[in-house]
């Protein structure tokens, strides 16, 4: 059963997956441009690290895009068929959802692996200045984990009906409206910011997307 589900998911996502693979491989190579051993002082090293750090923003964005894309693809065919086919298959609903989720998660490994390969190639091709280290494996693992977090969240949201997605959007909208109201009234009650901080910092689920995403660092 898993093989059959994985096959369908691969078939639906192979073109987007090709783009993800290309981006995953190219990103470390592109971000490593300009890193050279011929830096002599602290300030040159600092500039180089700043340049690397600006590329570091692209990694979590790509991870989120990969997760979002594969999550939407996982459900798109079933949504189009109003889930009649999936529901008429002789397996419990939770089992079907688990199979679809696992198949998508397996496909996530492909861009993460190519990012790892790209990072290894970039590391091998770069003569690092003294004091800097390469972290290709850690970066790829982190990318894979971030993509998995994004995939899990979007998979759960897109598994529901349009109504469910509407509720989620309505809740998010309500949170923003409450914050705007609080600001307008002038109350000194921080509402949105603590909520975001809880989501973004440990143990919030989005913590993985924050911080330094560096292929080369001290």
């Amino acid at each position, binding site marked *: 059963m898993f093989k*059959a589900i994985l096959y369908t998911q691969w078939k639906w996502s192979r073109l987007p997956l090709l783009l993800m693979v290309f981006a995953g491989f190219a990103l470390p190579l592109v971000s490593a441009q300009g890193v050279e051993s011929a830096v002599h002082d602290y300030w040159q090293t600092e500039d180089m690290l700043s340049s690397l750090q600006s590329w570091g923003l692209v990694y979590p964005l790509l991870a989120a895009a990969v997760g979002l894309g594969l999550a939407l693809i996982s459900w798109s065919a079933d949504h189009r068929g109003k889930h009649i086919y999936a529901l008429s298959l002789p397996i419990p609903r939770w089992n079907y959802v688990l199979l679809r989720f696992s198949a998508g998660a397996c496909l996530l490994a492909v861009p993460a692996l190519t990012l790892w390969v790209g990072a290894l190639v970039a590391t091998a091709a770069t003569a690092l200045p003294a004091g800097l280290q390469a972290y290709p494996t850690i970066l790829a693992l982190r990318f894979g984990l971030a993509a998995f977090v994004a995939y899990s969240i979007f998979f759960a949201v897109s598994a529901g009906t349009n109504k469910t997605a509407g509720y989620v959007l309505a809740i998010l909208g309500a949170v923003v409206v409450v914050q705007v109201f609080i600001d307008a009234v002038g109350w000194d009650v921080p509402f949105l910011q603590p909520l975001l901080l809880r989501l973004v910092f440990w143990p919030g689920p989005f913590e993985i997307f924050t911080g330094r995403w560096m292929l080369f660092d001290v």
Partner: protein
Amino acid sequence: MSHAVEIHDLHYRAGKSFEIRELALNVPTGSMYGFLGPNGAGKTTTIRLMLGLLRPRSGRIVVLEGEIPREAPRVLARTGYVPEQPHLYPSLTVAEALRFHAAFYRTWDWKWAEELVGAFHLDRAAVLGRLSKGEMGKLEMLLALAQRPELLVLDEPTDGLDPVVRRDVLTALLEYVSQQNATVFISSHLVHELERICDWVGVMDRGRVVVELPMHSFKNGIKRLRIANAPTLAGDTPFVVLAREQTDGGAETWVVRGWQAPMHQYFEGVGASLRDVVDLDLEEGFVELLRTFREPTR
């Protein structure tokens, strides 16, 4: 008599306008059960409830001795389902759709599936999204049959198909039933089609089952009677009067259900005279039945 499908006191509501109420159905094991009803009667909803695709508000559904929806996966493993609308993944080829479907059924018969691919003239490399309606109908039937089900649930399986494809599909179905003694539950509004193949019939309208009985009783028991000097009030008749109409010369035409030959004595008892008894075909009987159901005072 054992039943492949038993539904008791089923209640389901979708929105404000559509409701299934107090639905009761009994499909005898090994029968070809024709589920008749006009468009919008609730046939597809009943089928989806029967297979656990929808959850009822109340009532009890037992299919192949399994409680629905609790035991739906076990029941679905022994049930072939052809839905009203094609629902297969359109980007797959015929061969891929077969492999995908087969992966979920232990009883899948590859040999027979390949034979049916040949018999139905399906191109294994064709993408489902580009199949014609007839080809898609044949593929749906193939998928349902090749899993060797004990129960086949077919929701308007030949609707919109040309006569040649319809014949191919029904032939495959009848061959399977004759080999396996499977139960077939087939919904349709094509009354003549069911008349030829079904031995039981259930009629549904506006979310309720109007009648459920063996096909021969349905066909033989509904008659059109021509009566002279018909009584103003029918009174306590030994049959059910579905409709009555004035005709030329003061005579009346009655459409009745549950007719048997000795009942002509009733008319002698009330001073009327029975001129003629005309057999109605299933479609006429079906139409009269629905008309009476919708306008009970007529």
